[in-house]
């Protein structure tokens, strides 16, 4: 990208420049102008690329630098493994939130992955073309719905429904949040899985049918394993979205710092706790730093996931 393109016979810079040289003088001839444009365009491209990297590193730096101040007053062991979160009493154990984030993500994936794969199989293998051309845009539109809308519907429709169905007195908790998140990540996962299944060469299916297998056997034993890396990619993208989701979660999870050992117990996760407390926090306090540390943790988790996605993609290309 950064190298100047090889001169083509048609638009050779030297030839163009010399043939169209203006009579008024050397300073602004076409050749120099062209090379000036080319060079400044190159500089702009490089600068933009550097700018993006700079943003990422400043964010990492600021979050990390502020977050690390937590450990001046709170030991890392307490921060990561204590379940006592009470800023009013100077207790900053974030275990509840870390656990909550992973538990919520796990539960969400448990519900959404099988559903999404079934939807994707249906879309890619069984739907007639006219229905396909209708369903795919619908899925794409679903991805674009703002999360606060999901959260609001979750709070006003899903939670009363859960209350009626299960007889609990609140309904807020991990299960409600997981259901809302499932609806959110479902389109993402199933669309990418769909693409992965479509990309499996037709000859695999033909070979499978030729060996006498049924449609079910072909899909489960041949197509899905062949699309494995694409499906993994979809799952990790979905997980990334589930882990970082804030607005939808904060409206249905109950926001109480207690360990989520039941599906219907109000609890809190990293994102929801940050957004609940950040506007009320004194600037230079361990409380503030602890919230930054939690944000930094989220950042690290999502970076790890992106790296995983890259690795899987590379492996997928090789095989």
């Amino acid at each position: 990208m950064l190298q100047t393109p090889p001169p083509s016979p048609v638009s050779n810079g030297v030839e163009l420049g010399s043939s169209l040289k203006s009579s008024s003088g050397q300073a602004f001839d076409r050749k120099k102008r062209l090379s000036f444009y080319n060079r400044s365009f190159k500089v702009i491209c490089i600068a933009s690329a550097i700018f993006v990297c700079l943003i990422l590193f400043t964010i990492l730096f600021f979050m990390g630098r502020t977050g690390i101040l937590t450990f001046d007053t709170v030991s890392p062991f307490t921060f990561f493994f204590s379940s006592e979160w009470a800023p009013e009493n100077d207790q900053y154990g974030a275990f509840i939130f870390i656990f909550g984030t992973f538990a919520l993500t796990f539960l969400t994936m448990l519900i959404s992955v099988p559903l999404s794969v079934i939807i994707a199989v249906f879309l890619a293998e069984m739907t007639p073309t006219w229905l396909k051309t209708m369903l795919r845009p619908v899925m794409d539109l679903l991805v674009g719905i703002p999360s606060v809308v999901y959260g609001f519907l979750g709070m006003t429709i899903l939670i009363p429904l859960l209350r009626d169905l299960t007889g609990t007195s609140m309904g807020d908790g991990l299960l409600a949040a997981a259901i809302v998140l499932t609806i959110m990540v479902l389109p993402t996962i199933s669309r990418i899985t769909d693409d992965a299944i479509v990309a499996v060469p037709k000859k695999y299916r033909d070979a499978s049918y030729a060996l006498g297998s049924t449609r079910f056997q072909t899909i489960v034993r041949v197509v899905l394993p062949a699309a494995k890396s694409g499906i993994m990619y979809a799952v990790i993208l979905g997980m990334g979205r589930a882990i970082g989701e804030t607005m939808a979660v904060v409206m249905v999870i109950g926001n109480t710092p207690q360990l989520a050992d039941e599906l219907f117990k109000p609890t809190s996760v990293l994102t929801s706790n940050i957004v609940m407390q950040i506007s009320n926090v004194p600037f230079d306090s361990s409380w503030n730093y602890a919230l930054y540390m939690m944000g930094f943790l989220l950042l690290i988790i999502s970076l790890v996931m992106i790296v995983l996605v890259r690795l899987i993609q590379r492996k997928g290309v090789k095989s």
Partner: protein
Amino acid sequence: MKSKFFKNIAFTAIALTVAFGSISMANIADAASKLSGKIVINGSSALLPLTLQAANEFKKLNPKVKISASAAGSVTGPQAVRKGIADIGACDWDASLDVPGFKKFDGQVANKVAVIPFAAVTNSNVKVANLSTKQLQDIFSGKVKNWKEVGGSDAEIVVVNRAFGSGTRVNFQMKALDGADFMTKGDNYKEVKSSGDMKTAIETTPNSIGYMDLVYVTSKMTALKINDIAPTEANVINGKYKVWSYGYYMTKGQPTGATKAFIEYVQSKAFQNGSLKKLKFIPISAMKN
């Protein structure tokens, strides 16, 4: 992660404007008739409607004064004043004194600007209309878990609380619970982020109890009598209903210049009995203490 970055930018921007504002204010301070300068207001979101209304009216009277008002949480008000980012920090409690959870801000002056009444509210399915201070303490600390223990039907109490740091929470704890502690965990306990969320939670959750500014109370919920006194404006003014607080403008030392003029405008009879009343706050002059 973004917020820190933007905060820094915003802080420098505000700091610059404050610096320039104060320079221009110093230049023209002699010409007292034509007030000018820049006032930056930050802090409580409960007081923001009042601040915005007052700012609009004040700017009409003093076109050379620029006022920029924004809101986050109560505690950001006095903090911004301490850091020199804002001239006025709106706060739901007197930040020059210690309150539960927050230390006092030394060297700041609290200027009363409004009276804010609060109400304990329940979902409309709850058959209890009156609670004593003791009963409220027991419910919000988690000791009483069923409505039948306080004269209601046999149903578990769902306690909805504001998150720690909320100005409404500080005031409710001091005035309605006499400083008693809230519960922090439980199967039927949750925290919400704002008065709006509290309203939705109370309206949609059967057997729930919470609290909010009196202006947020709707017909879809019950505002409880506390110690047999109904939460009405009249009862606040005649001193029977105790669960209210002043809203404060915190300043660094005694206010001066445009800031002083603005606070005086907000405290003036014309504003207090006009726009402030329309926004459903109670004028400070109505209180007899």
